[in-house]
């Protein structure tokens, strides 16, 4: 059990039988009044968000969440298939559940799949992934137009801005939290 004073951004709690993550949190306390714990919560299954204000004596159940290491196999239509690397069990998540994660997913990538009870609800990727650039405009040397980035496409179809020296066939590191270019990777 959690009490209201445990509430903070990122905490996962059970509300009406479903896991919720606190995406925004503000402690407030007017004058000599009661402490108020104002939360914006996101349902981790449906993605829907709502705000609620809790009091000091409110209690919360911990969401029964577990992460398992799995390998990405392939996608078929809207289904993204993964395999448990220990017991070879297979399962899939939908495109909606995957969200932006599809931008960084390549075959055989190891990810953490989040389970609510027996049910897979989300995945988390490594913070940094290396992807191959499949399309890039050549860099016009001596270009002094002032732009210091250009758009490229990587093997997953994801487009992002990179420094001008990045070329087709290069491997680049991307931060999956922001989707931003980090560095060029030498193989």
């Amino acid at each position, binding site marked *: 059990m959690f009490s209201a*004073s445990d509430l903070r951004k990122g905490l996962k709690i059970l509300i009406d039988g479903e896991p919720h993550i606190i995406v925004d949190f*503000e*402690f*407030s*306390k*007017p*004058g*000599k*009044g*009661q*402490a*108020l714990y*104002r939360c914006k919560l996101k349902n981790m299954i449906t993605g829907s968000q709502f705000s609620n*204000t809790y009091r000091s*004596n409110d209690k919360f159940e911990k969401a029964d969440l577990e992460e398992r290491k799995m390998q990405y196999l392939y996608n078929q239509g809207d289904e993204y298939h993964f395999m448990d690397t220990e017991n070879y069990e297979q399962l899939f998540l939908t495109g909606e559940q995957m969200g932006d994660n599809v931008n960084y997913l390549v075959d055989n990538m190891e990810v953490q799949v989040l389970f609510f009870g027996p049910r897979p609800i989300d995945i988390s990727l490594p913070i940094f992934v290396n992807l191959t650039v499949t399309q890039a405009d050549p860099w016009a040397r001596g270009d002094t137009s002032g732009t210091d980035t250009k758009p490229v496409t990587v093997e997953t179809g994801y487009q992002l801005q990179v420094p001008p020296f990045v070329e087709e066939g290069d491997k680049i590191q991307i931060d999956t939290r922001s989707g931003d270019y980090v560095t060029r990777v030498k193989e």
Partner: protein
Amino acid sequence: MLDFKGLQLRAALLRLIRRFFHQQGFLEVDTPVRQPVLLPESNILPINSGSWFLQTSPEQCMKRILARNRVNIFQICPCFRADERGSRHLEEFTMLEWYRIDGDYVDLMDDCETLLRYLKESLIIQTEFSDTIAGSCFGTMTVESGWERVTVAEAFAKWGSMSLAAALESDRFDELVSIEIEPHLGLHAPTFLCDYPASCASLARLKKDDISLAERFELYIAGMELANGFSELTDADEQRLRFEEELDRIEQREGVRPVMPNKFLEDLKSLEPAAGIAFGFDRLVMLLLSADLINQVVSFSPDDFE
């Protein structure tokens, strides 16, 4: 962690506040931070220090000094409140507190106006601070005149999604003040929210013409609560009854009944009419530095140690 300019501003403010109160004939006092018994307030959680407590406010000691010595007093000191951590809350923060003999809450509102005007005028002419102050909401706000005084009932009628009576009835008073009313207060000029329901002012005197209300106010600037002041309750018997109620609430929650501050109640018997106010020093620095987080305006915040 505060940069050099921030440290300079804090130091300048401390110096100016002391000068202001000295000029007005107030005596500066320094009372113990660690105390064996606290004034019971069920909404404020103390931090233990051995079998004693760190003060949640200097109120107890300052009122005992006031009762024994008829003199206006002030203090700038650290206060500690458990589990208060947010953009405007730290578990350890700095409080400016002052008490006026023969005064009431209206005198304290006047004090606030005079003090903040003095601080603005004094700081804006110092070259190292003038740009910072001029660019802050405190700098652009009219503090020279036109301060607003709004009663709690008026505020509920204007901005509340329910009436004051309904909010009290459903135990949502604090929630509505915090979410629906506070954001509107002190946007053009500093605003006093005054005349709180009697149930929200355990240490305050009730209004003579309406005992459902207490002579208590809060000062707001830019939607932020800066100070809480009231005419002191000087009836020791009435104060004991109110403390019993607070102790009941604490006992219900904690399973342990804290000790009644008997020496305080004893001294309260000799307290003449007076008024006192607690002013959040760090929040004033937040306004002057246009900071969103209280963490940013203290020399060291808890994050600086982790």
